[in-house]
């Protein structure tokens, strides 16, 4: 299936059989479109000639809604619901933007806890990405193991802030709760456990012969195309571009930790294939564990609510802050007109931008490979549509 990519017949010249193109709708209720994404496929037999993604089925007017809040703090529960599998990272991006707009410095302890939470959430998000990717391609077992381990992370979050999915935990200038005393030993225990688990995942899925065959030569995204389409996150790193906002546009306390950026090297096929994007996610989980372990060791004492402003009323101006979410560059552009309500909020969501390249990379592949390509982009429609 993935051995060779056959170019579709462009015209019916020569002696080849005349073929007719057909339009097929994939989604919005298709299980492997990861939500309510509708793809309009123009196919020639089994070969995809063109893909037109239709989005908007989950549009909730997030940006317009924010303009009608009574203050900046109230946006946070809505930010949670943007990309609902990595809520902590969304909150992180929003509070970083709002704090830059307000020009406030948050205590060191807050920054450390935020980094721990964001990295744990990155693992949880990648576990979903990897598990569902397995399901898309036909491996059911890793999915259950992934969800079990994700559940342990959610238990840690529940212990801290009371919610398992939509946390409302990071507030502008601080956190809603301090971490409980038993959090640090439990998180350390999880890190040790999860390292072993990652090896199992690699044995079960990553180096599985069938999985490699289904993904290694599929959906090739060359580095220049990835850059031109403004891809970010594992999508960009899978194509061999060494770019991570945690290092290249530092925010919070990421500069204090020692970690590596996972880049696709084309271990089993050409660089930039679906397999490369998958291995980047696997490697990133390991790096996140490293960051969490270091942060748990170094976490300073202090108060987490001292810097929360009583009244959030930034001076007129604008700010764009970007952070590395599990899916790529998540940026918030906030315009303030001096009142307590944001004048305009624009979210630059990585899923939306990464999805735009799908036409480019799936042209000429089989329909079955298209499923592998969508899975490797790792979209969350809540964030694509907002």
């Amino acid at each position: 299936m993935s051995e060779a990519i056959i170019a579709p017949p462009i015209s019916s010249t020569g002696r080849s059989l005349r073929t007719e193109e057909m339009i097929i709708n994939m989604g919005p209720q298709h299980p492997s479109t990861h939500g309510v994404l509708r793809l309009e496929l123009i196919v020639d037999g089994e070969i995809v000639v063109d893909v037109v993604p239709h989005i908007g089925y989950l549009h909730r007017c997030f940006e317009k809604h924010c303009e009608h809040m009574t203050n900046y703090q109230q946006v946070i529960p809505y930010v949670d619901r943007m990309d609902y599998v990595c809520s902590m990272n969304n909150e992180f991006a929003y509070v970083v933007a709002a704090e830059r707009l307000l020009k406030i410095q948050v205590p060191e302890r807050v920054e450390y806890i935020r980094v721990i939470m964001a990295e744990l959430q990155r693992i949880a998000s990648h576990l979903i990405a990897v598990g569902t990717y397995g399901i898309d391609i036909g491996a059911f077992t890793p999915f259950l193991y992934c969800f079990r381990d994700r559940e342990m992370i959610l238990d840690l979050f529940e212990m801290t802030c009371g919610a398992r999915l939509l946390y409302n935990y990071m507030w502008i200038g601080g956190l809603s709760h301090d971490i409980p005393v038993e959090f640090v030993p439990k998180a350390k225990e999880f890190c040790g456990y999860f390292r072993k688990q990652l090896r199992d995942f690699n044995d079960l899925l990553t180096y599985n012969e069938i999985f490699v065959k289904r993904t290694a030569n599929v959906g090739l995204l060359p580095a220049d195309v990835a850059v031109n389409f403004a891809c970010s996150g594992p999508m960009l790193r899978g194509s061999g571009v060494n770019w991570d906002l945690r290092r290249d546009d530092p925010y919070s306390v990421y500069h204090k930790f020692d970690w590596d950026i996972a880049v696709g090297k084309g271990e089993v096929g050409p660089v930039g294939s679906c397999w490369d994007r998958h291995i980047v996610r696997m490697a990133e989980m390991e790096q996140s564990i490293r960051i969490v372990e270091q942060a748990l060791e170094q976490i300073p004492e202090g108060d987490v609510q001292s810097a929360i402003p009583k009244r959030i009323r930034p001076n007129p101006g604008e700010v764009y802050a970007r952070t590395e979410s599990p899916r790529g560059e998540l940026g918030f552009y906030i315009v303030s007109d001096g009142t307590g309500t944001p004048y305009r909020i624009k979210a630059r969501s990585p899923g939306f931008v990464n999805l735009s390249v799908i036409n480019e990379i799936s042209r000429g592949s089989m329909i079955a490979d298209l499923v592998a390509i969508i899975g490797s982009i790792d979209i969350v429609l809540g964030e694509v549509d907002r």
Partner: protein
Amino acid sequence: MEQSKVIRKKDLTLLERMYIPEILKGMRITIGQMFKPKFTVQYPEDKFVPSASFRGRPVLVEENGIERCVACGLCSRVCPALAIEVQASETVENKERYPEKFEINMLRCILCGFCEEVCPEEAIIMSNEYELVFENQKDALFAKDKLLVPIEKVQARLDFLRSHR
């Protein structure tokens, strides 16, 4: 698009070609799972008991047969989903004001916990109840009769809030 590349293929070793050892290797993980403790809960029969940190549905604290709420309206102001409606009235009690009508639309509530955070009287708090099922929209409007909960039932949450603020 880049040219496709042939994936390198390793030859199988004798042990791999014997088939059975490889099957056993695969079964090792499955069999290993059988002796580990179960991770799942048989939900409707065994219920998940949340800890005090859990944010379930918001309730009003009832102390000595009367609600603590003084109907200041902060919770309805801070609610991002506009789920809370409070109508204040006067009373002869010490607190002088009480909510004549206190209604939370549970279809709107997003369980964010802002109302609990902002309440000056610790009168509205997040309970540990998570089963929110309604048969029609009217059932989802929780008035005082459904919201009031005696203080003994939510003491754990109150203690948690005092220790974590």
